[in-house]
């Protein structure tokens, strides 16, 4: 039994390292490099969003954060019945999180492309946002 473990564990460990290495390569190779953010199918640059959106300051457990109000952006891009939708926020490295309107309306998008929500877990604080999909 012990001999079995001595043979199998190093092989599994090597496999795990290879999975980690190939996943890292995959994530970097599939990063989407773009300077715009798609919201409900429409492309905007961060500058555009900051010129048309309403600025909001929120207090988070990592201090004060300033950015453009997400609820305002969603309304401006013409989403009807905002409460009926779910909003999937996608990052350039493939990370994504879905929030409902109740959470989204408290959030902001910063000038470095990160969303913050004052009362939601950090899991939802997506970095390097490239899209907010409305579904």
């Amino acid at each position: 039994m012990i001999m079995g473990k001595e043979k199998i564990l190093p092989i599994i460990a090597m496999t795990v390292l290879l999975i980690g290495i190939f996943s890292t390569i995959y994530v970097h190779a599939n990063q989407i490099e773009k300077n715009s953010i798609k919201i409900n199918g429409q492309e905007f640059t961060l500058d555009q969003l900051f010129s048309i959106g309403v600025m909001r300051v929120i207090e988070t457990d990592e201090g004060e954060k300033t950015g453009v109000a997400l609820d305002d952006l969603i309304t401006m891009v013409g989403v009807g019945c905002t409460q009926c939708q779910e909003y999937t926020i996608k990052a350039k490295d493939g990370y994504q999180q879905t929030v409902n309107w109740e959470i989204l309306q408290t959030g902001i998008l910063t000038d470095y492309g990160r969303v913050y929500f004052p009362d939601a877990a950090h899991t939802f604080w997506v970095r390097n946002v490239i899209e907010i999909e409305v579904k």
Partner: protein
Amino acid sequence: MNNVKLLAGILVFGSLWGFSECIIGSSLHETGLPTGAIMTGFFAITFLVISRMTYHQPGMQLGMGVVAGALRLFNPFVGCHLCSALAIMAEGAIFEVFWYKISFDFRELKTLTMQISMGILSAYFVYIGGYIVTQILTPIISGSGFFVENLTAVMPNILSSGLLPALIGAVVLPAVLLTKKIDLRLKDHLYYPTTIGVSAFCWLFVVGNWLLLT
């Protein structure tokens, strides 16, 4: 070993783990270092392996995760970190399951190859397991609901993020096992004052930090 002694052990090791997550983890986070990988690969693996090596009791690491997660969850210094708390609790549980087949005297881990392999596997699976659990439970608890497509999309990131903790674990576990020859047992009359004192210090330090800074 009696149950009270074991509970005191769970409390002290869980508190030390939670303390390092709250205080050292928060400081590391500010420096921009990969906090999660260091906290799991170094601190979690160290406390989990030392406690297993010292107490030889099944279920202890699960209890430590609950204590450490609770300290993280109720840590007033940096607010409520639901994801971190859930991840820590899950890490304790995953470690417990992963080490189920390893004997308490670690006789399977005599060779360096086995120690490095176990370090890689423990740190990797503990880390990605905690990550997956938070990706599932945090949206559910937060009320926004869990979406399978989000987890699927994030899986390459999760599998990739386990690489650094695995490499740290490969070094840390053999290093921790070197301390096996050191007798960490305390005399009975010192055991309870020490364990309760250290636990109280961890909890009071975390709360005190908040009181001083507000």
